[in-house]
């Protein structure tokens, strides 16, 4: 077992699960959790959901209290970013000037929201942190004309939150349909339709050419020449893995820290969560997920493997995420690269299920308001179930 110290960089979901897992394996040495944010680890999914609901300002959705973390004997270094990594010297630098040696390192620096190019105006927000969510809340409380740039999950959830408060909102999507990468071509239209059902205008095939306004945003200029008035703009155009601090580390970085199937990036260095691109043995391919479940599981697995590399086990998973739109719940399991998609039920209905086939296997499932079924399909995908069996289970 390692003498330590074990250092985890990134104090969010994956990092938290890494330190908890390190202790669970019996590691008793020095354990540090380094985070760029001032906060104790907190949960992000609520930020685009319940956190935006009208009413009292909600508390930060912390995963654990400070006492709970102290009980694990974790040294917290919050509010300081790691600024570089030297894998030969087994050393990271904190805040530009403090060297910290590690015996094992877990990288869990997550992702950061992509910004629109150009100057930043007041009233324009991305949504990744609790500060972002507070700013958006405040703007919604004040009443506003709202434009969401990007028809992905976060943009759609923020639009849902706005509609709950009767704020008018327009979603702009540059592609002909939103969410094509996330749910596949066939199902993207069915998801987009949920916006129309709930009174949100979705405009596809238009891109933003600029923002109008002096200090505060007043409008969004579009590629068709028109200007959409707005005093709140939420930009949801995706996130990039946070790897800038790894530039001179010698690690392979290609849209994430490249890892093998045990989440190992280099000797003694492992990665987990939104920042990790690893080989998922279940699908035989490299993946980088931005999902709660895999971030939590990878954090635990990375620390376990880092502490016992000789017994390292592969991390394989059927990807899973959920998203709350209006009063609807969307759940997706597996992958969307499919030869065929079969819809069970009626897409005009308030619940439906879509199954994704690759060759003769079930590889994915997307459900609207069918929480009782989705995990059964997830289990089937994990077992490598035949397409015919999935159809039979669905009553086809």
């Amino acid at each position: 077992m390692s003498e330590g110290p074990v250092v985890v960089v990134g104090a969010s979901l994956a990092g938290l699960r890494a330190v908890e897992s390190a202790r669970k394996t019996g590691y008793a040495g020095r354990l540090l959790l380094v985070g760029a944010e001032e906060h104790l680890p907190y949960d992000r999914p609520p930020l685009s959901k319940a956190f935006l609901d009208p009413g009292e300002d909600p508390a930060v959705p912390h995963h654990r209290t400070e006492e709970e973390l102290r009980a694990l004997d974790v040294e917290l270094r919050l509010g300081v970013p790691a600024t570089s990594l030297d894998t030969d010297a087994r050393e990271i630098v904190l805040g530009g000037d403090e060297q910290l040696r590690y015996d094992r390192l877990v990288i869990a620096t997550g992702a950061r929201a992509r910004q629109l190019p150009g100057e930043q105006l007041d009233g324009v927000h991305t949504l990744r942190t609790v500060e972002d969510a507070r700013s958006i809340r405040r703007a919604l409380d004040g009443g506003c004309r709202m434009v969401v740039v990007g028809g992905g999950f976060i943009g759609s959830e923020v639009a849902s939150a706005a509609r709950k408060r009767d704020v008018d909102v327009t979603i702009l999507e540059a592609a002909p349909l939103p969410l094509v990468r996330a749910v596949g071509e066939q199902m993207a239209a069915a998801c987009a339709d949920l916006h129309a059902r709930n009174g949100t205008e979705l405009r596809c095939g238009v891109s933003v050419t600029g923002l109008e306004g002096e200090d505060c945003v007043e409008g969004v200029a579009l590629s068709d020449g028109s200007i959409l008035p707005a005093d709140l703009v939420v930009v949801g155009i995706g996130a990039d893995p946070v790897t800038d601090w790894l530039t001179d580390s010698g690690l392979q970085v290609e849209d994430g820290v490249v890892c093998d199937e045990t989440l190992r990036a280099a000797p003694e260095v492992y990665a987990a969560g939104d920042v990790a691109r690893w080989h998922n043995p279940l699908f035989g391919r490299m993946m980088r997920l931005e999902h709660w479940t895999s971030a939590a599981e990878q954090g635990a697995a990375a620390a376990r493997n880092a502490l016992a590399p000789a017994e390292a086990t592969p991390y394989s998973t059927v990807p899973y995420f959920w998203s709350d739109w209006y009063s609807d719940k969307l759940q997706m399991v597996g992958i969307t690269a499919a030869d065929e998609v079969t819809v069970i039920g009626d897409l005009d209905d308030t619940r439906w299920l879509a199954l994704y086939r690759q060759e003769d296997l079930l590889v994915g499932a997307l459900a609207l308001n069918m929480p009782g079924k989705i995990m059964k399909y997830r289990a089937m995908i994990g077992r490598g179930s035949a397409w015919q069996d999935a159809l039979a289970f669905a009553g086809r």
Partner: protein
Amino acid sequence: MRIVLDENKCSSLGMCESVAPDFFEVGDDGALKLLNPTPPGGRRALMEEAVAACPTSALSIEE
């Protein structure tokens, strides 16, 4: 050991079912059913995994 569910926190995401389908099942109405609220001691590790898998911390173990 006893599994305790906080129904106000559960949002029917089904991760617990994914980990331990013999103990948890989300119904079609979204309500979580505890199939065996008092699992045998030998299943502790699995139960701990199911509790940790819940994104809303709706599950806990009582002795």
